[in-house]
C-alpha cells in the first residue's frame, strides 16, 4: 500500500516538474508574446496543480493528515490561470505589440482598430 502511494506521489510530482520545465523551455524558444502565453498559461497551470496534488497525497497517505487547503489552492489556480493568460495577451495587443511575422491570419487587428477609434484611444 505504501509502495502504491509512493508511486502515485512520485508520478504526480515528476509530471508536474516536467510540465514546468517545458513551460520554461517554451518561454525561451517561442517567437512572440502570444505563443509564449500558450506555454505559460497551460503548462504552468497543470504543472503547479500536479505538484500540489502530489504534496496533498503525500501528507494524506503517508503522514495521515488531510489538508483541504491544498485542494482549495488547486481550485484557485484552475480559476486564475487562464484569466491571467487572457488579460496579459489582450492588454499587450491593445498596447500595440506586433504578432510574429509567421502569423497567417489576423481577424483581431481590425476589431481592435475599431474599438480604439470608438473610444478615442491612440
Amino acid at each position, binding site marked *: 500500500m505504501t509502495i502504491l502511494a509512493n508511486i502515485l506521489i512520485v508520478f504526480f510530482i515528476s509530471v508536474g516538474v516536467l510540465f514546468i520545465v517545458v513551460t520554461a523551455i*517554451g518561454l525561451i524558444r517561442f517567437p512572440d508574446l*502570444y505563443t509564449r*502565453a500558450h506555454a505559460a498559461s*497551460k503548462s504552468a497551470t497543470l504543472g503547479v496543480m500536479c505538484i500540489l496534488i502530489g504534496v496533498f497525497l503525500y501528507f494524506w497517505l503517508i503522514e495521515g493528515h488531510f489538508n483541504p487547503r491544498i485542494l482549495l489552492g488547486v481550485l484557485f489556480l484552475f480559476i486564475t490561470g487562464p484569466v491571467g493568460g487572457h488579460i496579459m*495577451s489582450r492588454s499587450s495587443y491593445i498596447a500595440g505589440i506586433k504578432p510574429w511575422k509567421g*502569423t*497567417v*491570419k489576423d481577424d*483581431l487587428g481590425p476589431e481592435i482598430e475599431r474599438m480604439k477609434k470608438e473610444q478615442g484611444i491612440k
Partner: protein
Amino acid sequence: MAFQILLNFTLAFIWMFLSSNFTASGFLIGFLLGMLAIIMMRRFFKQRIYLVRVWALIKLTLLFIKELIMANVQVLKLALSPKLNMQPAFFALPIELKEEWEITLLSSLITLTPGTIVVHISDDAKTLYIHAIDIDDVDEAIDDIKNSFEKAIMEVTKS
C-alpha cells in the same frame, strides 16, 4: 434547479424529524428518499429535474480534464520539437451563449484547451477572438471542440 435542491434538503430534514435520528446517516437516508420523491413528482416541476444538470456538470468536468491533459502534451511537443514550424493565427469565433458567466466559463475552457487562447471578447459579447498556435491542422478540429464545449455548457444551463 435551486428550488429543487432546497426542497430535497427540506425533505431530508423532515425525514430526520420524523425518525428523530439527527445524524449524518439519517440525513443521507432522508436525502435519498427525498430524491426519490422528487423524481416521482417530476412532472409538477416547470424545469428539468436537477440530477440531469448535475450529471451534465460531471460530464463537462471530465471533458475538461481530458482536454487539459491533451493541451499540455501538445505544448510539450511544440516546445521540444527541433524546428519551429507552427503557424499562429488570430481568428474570430461566433458564440451563442448569453449569460456572462457562461461566456467566462467558455473562455476559461478554451484557454486551457489545446492550442487556443482567448485574446479578446467583442463588446456585444457575440464573438470571441482567439489566438491559435497552429492554425493548419487545428482549424476545423477547433470548431468541433468549441461546438462540443458550447454544447456541454448549454446542456448544463438550459432550464
